[in-house]
């Protein structure tokens, strides 16, 4: 479903600030794959997400979605297949527009936008049903401005907006990091649910090692622009946080360094 081939990207090449953010990354995701991504600060996790989403253009390499080359498609065209939830709860919704208007915009993601009403009676009914699955009571606040919602509610809405039109690829970049623990847990639960329900190919960056182990069927560890460790299936299930730290030390010969890491 998603193929990332030989992706490399260097920032500020030829200057003192030169930085190899991604160094020959190869990655393949099947439909239904849920890959958690961990790695030290500046490992290139967000850069990889940005390359897949089309926000960044790599120096070399290719991105294929459903076997089709998409590397030359601009971000807005690629987002027909790729859904994203950002770390910042403010990033995924339009604050001065209503909940139903936000959902209507998301509903148009994989369709051509037309000069017909974005919110119709039948759509409102459908939005209500989707909102009910969040269990946050948002279905009764369709005409409330999204700016009035809490960070957790906004993030839940963002997640729904990204997934209810069934994208092929779902990219989650620390999408629970800005929330307090109970809200983060709520969003994590919702994530698990939509991912298993929809059977998309998902990449999720997290700084919570235990979460990276608990969620998904595959795990990758990144460092200095490379994927240095991979585990899947039964191997992943057997892993512990200690194993991960140990692996890192064995491969890199140094301690895992991440100021935001949560060991579990």
């Amino acid at each position, binding site marked *: 479903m998603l193929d990332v081939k030989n992706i490399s990207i260097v920032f500020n090449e030829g200057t003192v600030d030169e930085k190899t953010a991604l160094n020959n990354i190869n990655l393949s995701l099947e439909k239904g794959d849920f890959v958690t991504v961990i790695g030290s600060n500046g490992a290139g996790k967000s850069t990889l997400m940005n390359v897949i989403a089309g926000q960044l253009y790599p120096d070399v390499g290719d991105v294929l979605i459903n076997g089709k080359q998409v590397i030359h498609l601009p971000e807005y065209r690629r987002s027909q297949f790729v*859904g994203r939830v950002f770390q910042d709860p403010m*990033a995924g919704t339009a604050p001065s527009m209503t909940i139903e208007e936000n959902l209507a915009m998301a509903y148009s993601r994989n369709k051509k936008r037309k000069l017909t009403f974005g919110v119709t009676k039948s759509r409102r009914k459908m939005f209500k049903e989707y909102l009910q699955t969040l269990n946050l009571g948002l279905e009764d606040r369709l005409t409330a401005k999204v700016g009035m919602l809490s960070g957790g509610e906004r993030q839940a809405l963002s997640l729904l907006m990204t997934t209810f039109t069934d994208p092929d690829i779902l990219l989650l970049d620390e999408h629970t990091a800005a929330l307090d623990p109970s809200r983060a847990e709520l969003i994590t639960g919702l994530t698990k649910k939509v991912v298993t329900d929809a059977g998309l190919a998902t990449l999720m960056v997290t700084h919570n090692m235990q979460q990276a182990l608990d969620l998904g069927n595959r795990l990758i560890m990144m460092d200095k622009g490379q994927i240095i460790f991979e585990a899947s299936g039964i191997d992943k299930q057997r892993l512990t946080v200690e194993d991960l730290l140990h692996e890192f030390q064995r491969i890199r010969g140094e301690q895992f360094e991440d100021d935001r890491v949560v060991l579990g």
Partner: protein
Amino acid sequence: MFISMFGAVESGIIYAIMALGVYLTFRVLDFPDLTVDGSFVTGAAVAALAIINGVPPIIATILAGIAGFLAGTLTGLLHTKGKVNALLAGILMMTALYSINLRILGQPTLSLHTEATIFDQLGNVWGAPIDNMLNSMLGIFGLERLPSTWGILIVMLLVTVIIKLITDYFLKTEVGLAIRAIGDNKRMIRSLSANTDNLTILGVALSNGLVALSGGLIAQLGGFADVGMGIGMIVIGLASVIIGEALFGTKTIARATLAVIGGAVIYRMIVTLALRFDFFETGDMKLITAIIVIIALISPKILKTQREKKRRIEKRRALEQEIKEVG
């Protein structure tokens, strides 16, 4: 007095179309577009030139709107594809349009006094009985100088309201929602597969189309098009938007656009009132406008902090009272 206020409302309603355009860029797209000073004149110039060359006034007015649409398209292209800062893109287009407008006009001022404008034609169709009826109703209040025709006011009110309703509808369509999201959260709407560049261009083009349409009508109302008639137009548009929002609120789109129209009319009335003082001269209008905008921008904030202060004092007093009662 009544007759000058009547004139203020009459032109205010036409300027409201321009203000709706400014609302589209400044508020909806969050794009401070200064093209307005130029595109207003472009509209006036195109309409005047067309009418002088025998084009039916209604067609000439539509051509004015199209010319503004094209000017706005260029500003939008400059900003999105050329990656020029929004303010600078507008200033560049405004400057370029000055020369273009002069070329269209062929001379600094084109008079329409000998031509039949859209309003003259309207006067022929408009029934005098309606004027007589409305004027006789006013006569009851003892007003002596009465408007020569109500036709312009009523028809233009109708036209402006129709434009407002179309704008309201447009901003609720799938395309319109995406345009609003550009001003609210550009990154998000791009991640929802909207071509933000094209939508921005469309928004700026529509805005300037309205501005130029208004310019074309004002030229016909005043009977001339002048290369300098657009100076400060953007501030007038902003004044209308801000006054309207402050007085009528912005709770919904329909409310906000209505507020803009109200703001444009009230702005004209304020200027007319101000000019009645002998102290003020016509040339002071721009200064008055700037001051109105400054007051309208600052006073809501001052009022808010005052209200907050008052609330806090009251709360404290209530608490002290409580403590006293308990103690």
